């Protein structure tokens, strides 16, 4: 039986680390796509047409509650076969689209909660002071709606980062994919897979701590705001 070997560990490490650019790059572009698409869901779901909003809501729910790996397979293997609009994607683009769209369904929920957290009085005050629609959004609502969503967005970025290795299944050459092919060549999976786990841990754990600190800070700010309101009352 094979046991832990530091020799293999140090042999595999420099090879696996070369995949980190792809893994991080895919995380970043998917997240940017999710941020943009999350906004589009929000717009599509707040049109004056109730039936249309309802349909969009269920499409979003459908994407959100089905496995991202199937969505990646759908875009990579099946999309080229779709009549008229079908085209083939590179593995990287397919994974980016699938993960980006999957996470946009969560991000739109974050945006919504941010906007709903703005007190009704703020809207009324803006209307009473005769602000234009643009000013109402950009100088009153959004400056208050965006800060509390930042820790939530940070959380989703970390979750997305941990879903990115799914792309290895369609051949995106990130750290997991390299580790598996290293394992297949040398018949030692233990060390390469452990390296992958360590890399994920050292990247995601500090980010998680940062997000938690941010969360605490935001909560304190909110408490302050609430007490201020109470005092003026």
């Amino acid at each position: 039986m094979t046991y832990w070997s530091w020799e293999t560990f140090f042999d595999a490490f420099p090879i696996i680390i070369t995949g980190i650019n792809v893994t991080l790059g895919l995380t970043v572009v998917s997240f940017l796509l999710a941020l943009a698409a999350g906004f589009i869901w929000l717009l599509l779901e707040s049109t004056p047409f109730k039936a249309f909003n309802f349909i969009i809501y269920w499409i979003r729910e459908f994407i959100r509650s089905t496995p991202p790996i199937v969505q990646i397979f759908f875009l990579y293997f099946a999309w080229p076969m779709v009549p008229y609009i079908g085209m083939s994607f590179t593995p990287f683009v397919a994974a980016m689209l699938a993960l980006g769209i999957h996470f946009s369904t969560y991000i739109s929920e974050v945006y919504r909660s941010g906007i709903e957290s703005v007190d009704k009085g703020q809207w009324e005050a803006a209307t009473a002071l005769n602000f234009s629609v643009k000013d109402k959004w950009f100088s009153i609502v959004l400056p208050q709606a965006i800060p509390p969503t930042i820790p939530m967005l940070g959380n989703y970025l970390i979750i997305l980062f941990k879903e990115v290795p799914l792309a290895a299944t369609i051949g995106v050459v990130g750290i997991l994919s390299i580790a598996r092919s290293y394992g297949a060549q040398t018949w030692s999976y233990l060390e390469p897979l452990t390296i992958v786990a360590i890399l994920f841990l050292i990247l995601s754990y500090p980010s998680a701590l940062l997000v938690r600190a941010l969360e605490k800070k935001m909560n304190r700010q909110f408490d302050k705001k609430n007490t201020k309101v109470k005092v003026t009352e």
Partner: protein
Amino acid sequence: MFETGWNILNYLTQGLGTTLSIFLTATAFSFLMAFIAGLSRLSGNILIRGVTAVYVEVFRGTSLIVQLFWLYYAVPMLFNINLGSNWWVGVIAIALNYGAYMSEVVRTSVLSVDKGQTEASIALNLTRYQRMKEVILPQAFRLMLPEFGNYSIQILKGTALVSLIGLTDILYFGDIYRSTNLSEGPLAYLMVLIMYFIIALPLIWLSKKGEKIARRGVAS
């Protein structure tokens, strides 16, 4: 097209048993892990707290697919043990992963029960065990419901990964169907997605219901 769709759906039901059995067992074990780890992190013993914290952070900090492969390839090599079958590897990986996530739900829910409740139970001379079982947990449990509902959907989505270690679940049969009928690929995967969605529907309903119950809140 409808006829092919129906045929594919019929074909995919061969994998339904595996997906459902893994989902149900993994969910049960996730809940168990969540309560064990969540309550251990509130323990007075620093060793228990420390060990659980390491477990929770490691499993939350690495991803499910990495853990699954690690259990599948690396554990048998490292400890020279066989986890029984791939079915158990899948269940254990999912349960350990989501157990870690859900333990945070247990921990924060217990902490959010008002301090007065703890003080009152101490005043009433309840033992630590009685305090947790009769006073704190019944109230905390209501707060956990919506998050548990959400995580059950995440677990269902996670089960799709077990086809990667050779289990014959819904996605496995979807892949087989696509590779033999290439032009029907889009329909095949759409049916796979629809099948997962149908299983998810009662879970979505349950988590909405849980939200309503949780909103009633706890005594303060």
